[in-house]
C-alpha cells in the first residue's frame, strides 16, 4: 500500500509536468490552428536560460521569472517573423517549425554544450518529507501543486473572465471574433506567447527533475503530442486528463511491465482514437 501511494505521488508529479508541456501546445493549436512543433524547444530553452541565470548567482525564482520573460519575448519574435507568415498552410507550419527545432536545438548545443545540465532544487524545497515510511521530496509536491494551480487558473480564465470568453468564442469562430471588433492579430500573438510562456514555465519547473540535454526537445514534443492526441486538440481539460492517464500508465507500467509500458500507451491511443477520432475532449470538426 505504501509502495502504491508513493508511486501514485510520483505518477502525479510526472503527470503535472506532462500537463504543463502539453497545455500550451494544445491551446495554441486550438485557437490559432497553428501546429507549433517547436514547442518542445521553448520548453528546453527555458530550462537552459534559467540554468544560465542560476549559474550566475541568481536564486531559482528570479531565474524562473527571467527565463519565462526571455522565452516570451523570443516567442513574440518568432511569431512576428515566421509564424504569422504561415497561417492557413499546415504543411508550411510543419516545415517551418521543424526547421526551428533543428536550428534552436543546434544553437543550444553550441551555447550550452552536449552535457546533461540540471537546475539546482530551490533551497526552500531542498528536503524531503517522511511520512509513514515513505519519502516525498518536497519539490515534487510543489510541482504537483503548481500543476493543479495552473489547471485551476486555466479553468478560471476560460470560464470566468472576459478575455476567456473572447478566446472561447475564437476557438469556434475566429471570423466572428474579428467581426465583433477585436484585433485578431493581437489575440493571436497573445495566445502564442501565452502558450510559449506556459511551456517555458514547465521547462524551468522540470529543470531540477528532468534536466536538459541535447535532443530532449523531441522527447518533450512527442510526449506532449501523445497527451494532446489522447486528450483532444485545443482542450486544456483533455490535456489535464490525458496527462494523468499517460503519467500513471508510465509509472505503473514501469513497475509491472517494464518493457511494454510504451506499447500500452500505443494500444490506449489506438483504442481512444477508434472510439473518438479527435481524442477524449476534442471537438468534432465539420
Amino acid at each position: 500500500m505504501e509502495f502504491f501511494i508513493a508511486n501514485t505521488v510520483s505518477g502525479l508529479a510526472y503527470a503535472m509536468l506532462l500537463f504543463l508541456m502539453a497545455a500550451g501546445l494544445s491551446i495554441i493549436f486550438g485557437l490559432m490552428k497553428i501546429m507549433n512543433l517547436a514547442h518542445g524547444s521553448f520548453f528546453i530553452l527555458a530550462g537552459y536560460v534559467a540554468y544560465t541565470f542560476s549559474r550566475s548567482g541568481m536564486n531559482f525564482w528570479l531565474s524562473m521569472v527571467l527565463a519565462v520573460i526571455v522565452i516570451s519575448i523570443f516567442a513574440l519574435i518568432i511569431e512576428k517573423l515566421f509564424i504569422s507568415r504561415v497561417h492557413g498552410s499546415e504543411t508550411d507550419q510543419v516545415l517551418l517549425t521543424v526547421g526551428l527545432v533543428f536550428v534552436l536545438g543546434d544553437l543550444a548545443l553550441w551555447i550550452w554544450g552536449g552535457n546533461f545540465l540540471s537546475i539546482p532544487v530551490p533551497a526552500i524545497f531542498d528536503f524531503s518529507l517522511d511520512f509513514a515510511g515513505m519519502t516525498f521530496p518536497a519539490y515534487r509536491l510543489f510541482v504537483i501543486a503548481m500543476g493543479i494551480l495552473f489547471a485551476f487558473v486555466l479553468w478560471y480564465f476560460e470560464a470566468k473572465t472576459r478575455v476567456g470568453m473572447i478566446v472561447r468564442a475564437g476557438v469556434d469562430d475566429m471570423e466572428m471574433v474579428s467581426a465583433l471588433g477585436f484585433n485578431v492579430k493581437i489575440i493571436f500573438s497573445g495566445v502564442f506567447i501565452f502558450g510559449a510562456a506556459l511551456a517555458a514555465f514547465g521547462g524551468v519547473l522540470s529543470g531540477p527533475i528532468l534536466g536538459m540535454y541535447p535532443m530532449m526537445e523531441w522527447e518533450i514534443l512527442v510526449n506532449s503530442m501523445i497527451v494532446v492526441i489522447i486528450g483532444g486538440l485545443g482542450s486544456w481539460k483533455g490535456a489535464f486528463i490525458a496527462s494523468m492517464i499517460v503519467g500513471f500508465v508510465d509509472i505503473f507500467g514501469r513497475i509491472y511491465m517494464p518493457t511494454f509500458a510504451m506499447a500500452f500507451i500505443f494500444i490506449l491511443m489506438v483504442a481512444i482514437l477508434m472510439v473518438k477520432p479527435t481524442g477524449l475532449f476534442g471537438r468534432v470538426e465539420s
Partner: protein
Amino acid sequence: MKKNKRLVLAIMFVVSMFLTACGSGGGQASGDGEGEPIKLGFTLALTGNFAFMGEGVKEGVELFFEENGNKIGDRPVELFFEDDAGDPQKALKNYQQLTLNQEVDFLGGGTIGSISYALTEAAEKDKRVPIINVVGSGNSLSWGEKSDYVWRIGFSSLNYAGTLGVDMAENIGKKAVVIASDYVAGHEQATDFSANFKEHGGEVLDILWAPSGTSDFSSYINQIKQHDADAVYMFIPGADGPRFVQQFKEFGLAENYALVDGGSVLNAPSTVEAVGDAVVDGYVLSHYHVGLENELNKKFVEDYTAKYDKVPDNYVINGYDTAKVMSESIQEAGSTEVGDIIDTLKAGLSFDSPRGPIELDPKTNHPIQNHYILKGVEKDGEIVFELVRTYEKVQMPAEDPGYEKAK
C-alpha cells in the same frame, strides 16, 4: 506534352551532378611514399546525446598530435573527424567514406557500444584498415566477436563491473540492489557485477531494469527503498545517469545506501557540475584519475587544461592513447600497410600512459591496465574525487567465464 523533355533534362541534371561530384571525389590517387601525410580518420559522436564522449576523444587525439608536432616519425599527420551522432548507420557511412574516399591509414571510432560492434563487423569483412575502438566496452569484442583488425583502448564491462563486484563485497557492503539500463551493455554489467559480488560473499537483493531514456526514476527509487541493502550498484550511462544520481539524493536514499557506479557517470566533470553534492560519498571505478601521481599525467593534465581550460576525463585519455597507439604501431611497423600494422599490434605493444602502464593484450585485443576505485568527497567547498584503492594490471580473461545471466 512538354513533360518528356523536362524529364530528360532532369535526368541529365542528375547525371551531371554525379559526374561533377566524381570529378572531385574520384580522382584522388593514393600515396604511401616518404613525406606523404599519414591519414588518420575518426568517426565519433560529435553531436547528439553522446557528443560529450566524442568531443573528449577528439580533444585527446588533437592534444597528442599537438604535443608531438603533428608528426608520426618524420611524416606529417592529417586528421579527419567525421560525426556519427552515436548512430551506427552514420558511423558505417563514415567508415566507407574515410576508407574509400580519404583512404585513411588508421581509423578510430566506437563512441558507443553498438558502433564498436558495427565497425568490427565491417572491418572483419573488408580488412581494409586497422581500427582502434575508442570507448565501446562490450565483452564479446574480446572473445567471440574479436577481430584482428580492431583493438580496444578503453575498458570492458567485465573489468569494470567485475572489479567493482569484488571491491564492493570486500570493502563496502555485502547486500546490494542493482539498477541497470535495460539494454545489452546494462545486462552485461549487471551479470558481471552480480557474479563477482556473489563469488566474494555478497548478496544481490534485487535487479531493476530502467529503459534508456528514463527521465523519472521515482518508481525505481520506491522499489529500492523496500530493500534493506548496504549499497546500490548503478549502471546508467548517458543523460539518465546524472538524473538518477540526483533523484537518489532527492529521495533521501543517499543517507541509507552507498552509491556505487560502474558507468563512469559520477566522476564525469559534467555530472559533478550538474548535480553537485549528490555525488559526495559515491564510489566509482575508473581506468583513469586526474590526480594520478606520475610525470606523464602531470604533463597531460597541464597541457590539456592549458588548451581547453578544464580537466580531462576518461574520454580524453582514451583519445590521447588512441593517438599514441596509432603513432607507436605505425612507427614500429615502419609502414602504413594494414597487414604490417596488425602484425605489430599482434606482437604486443606496451607503453606508459598518463593512466599508468598499458599493455595491449593480443589474446583479447584489450589493454591490461590499472583500475582505480574513487570516492566523491567535499573538500574546501569543492567536490572532488579521491583515489581510494588501486587494482593493478587488471586483465580481460581470454574466454567468456560463462556467468549466469542476471535477470
